[in-house]
């Protein structure tokens, strides 16, 4: 799709483009499926146009919440990534077997279009290093052990250990929430 072709297509969704690029021709209506394909191609071509002058990193997070149409669009972009375009996505891996993301990911992996990097929980020694960044060794060891490895829990427990009045380490993320609630003062009423 030439530049003259993808701009009018994008303008069907980004109406304000008409004000910046005057004289864009109307886009003929197509059946729904063809319309979707034309839009996806226009997005890919827009990325390609951007990448002509500089490499483009397109990050798309939390794909597990994406709609089916969004996944289709992303899969299209990954397969048709223009030169000098890098697409980085993130998603949860504890998805139901019926989740559509699983199939999309499988197809992209098998086709060599995407490389999966599976993140695991931190090893105990790594968790200890993180916790020890702000905490004394004994407390850091407790925090690292109770976190069981996920960095989010680790940082939340470390935060609580640093900021609690007693210096005690919560036993769980739920207890972290409860302790913070107890420290809160009600805001003034207006």
């Amino acid at each position: 799709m030439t530049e003259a072709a993808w701009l009018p297509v994008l303008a069907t969704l980004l109406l304000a483009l008409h004000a910046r690029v005057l004289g864009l021709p109307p886009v003929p209506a197509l059946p729904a499926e063809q319309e979707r394909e034309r839009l996806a191609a226009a997005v890919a071509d827009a990325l390609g146009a951007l990448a002509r002058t500089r490499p483009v990193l397109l990050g798309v997070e939390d794909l597990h919440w994406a709609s089916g149409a969004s996944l289709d669009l992303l899969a299209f972009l990954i397969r048709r990534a223009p030169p000098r375009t890098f697409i980085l996505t993130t998603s949860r891996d504890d998805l139901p077997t019926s989740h559509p993301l699983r199939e999309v990911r499988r197809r992209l992996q098998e086709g060599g279009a995407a490389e999966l990097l599976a993140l695991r929980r931190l090893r105990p020694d790594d968790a200890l290093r993180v916790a020890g960044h702000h905490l004394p060794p004994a407390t850091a060891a407790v925090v690292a052990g109770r976190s069981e490895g996920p960095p989010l829990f680790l940082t939340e427990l470390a935060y609580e250990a640093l900021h609690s009045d007693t210096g005690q380490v919560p036993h769980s993320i739920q207890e972290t929430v409860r302790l913070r609630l107890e420290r809160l003062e009600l805001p003034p009423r207006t």
Partner: protein
Amino acid sequence: MKLQPLLLLLSLGFAQAAQLTVLASPDPTQLRVRVNEDDAFTERPEIPSDPLVVNVLRNLARLLPEALSHLPVTCRPERGPSVQVFTDFLGYDVCRFPTADTGQVTVLIEGAPPAQVTPLALGNAARITVTDLDDTVIVTGVVQGQALRNVLTANGTNRPLFPDAPALLRAQAGRGPVVYLSNSPDGLTPSLQTLLRVHHLTEGPLSPMPETLALRGRLTLGEVIDPFPLTESGRIDRNAGPWHLPLVGRSDELRRLRELWAAASRGRGPAAWLSGEAGVGKTRLARKLALRAPWCWWAAPPRRRPARIRRSPTRWAEHCRCSWM
């Protein structure tokens, strides 16, 4: 000529909404903010079932040089006077109406066909907090604006939007001032009703709270508010937040990401797909990738150097979301 990688971070959850930007407000008693994706142009009634595609395209629009900035936009409601605004240099603004009873609003942009949108009313917002606690989207206060509601619904049909909102959000509030979006008592969920009771707030339009007014005085026009680094003292602490803990145990993954990015930058290469359980650090690693790229450039926040390129070691994702080079 040195090539400048272009960074664009999208989130198909609602993490984008964690970004609030202070806007100019003629009324000094009001805190006027912009919530990402919650603007009149995000709505596309023609495809009501698929707003995310629209969102992606909308983000791309930010990358078009001088694309949507400083455009005169007229919002003509069915009832009441028309409102004209000019988009900011990122292409945003919000038409504010004195009453929510406007009916359908027609957005008129010079050179573009009229578009029907659902009216938004951020102008009376007293406090807003929108945060993303590890993929669990939490929105406190009164969610106002059909666009925001639609996006949440579209993203959250298979999960609770307000899981134990009062408890979790008050915990979040412990980190600092919480800004609530208010003024629409319609459609409150029981959790939000509980939240209001906990805060001793009545349902209905809220007056700006003292903390809100104080916050408004401390913030700079155009400043991007990140809910996470808000401290208990109420000040925005640039050094707070879990990302300032060291990134440990991810050297192999980070090295591979940099290899893939380098390959793609030279020509073609596969996409990277970071996968893992909640809280395992997917987003952190993605951010780290850009931070460690020696030739990584990104835009400065508007309050510092509008429309100029600046290298900065912090808050790159927020900059990339709201700015373009």
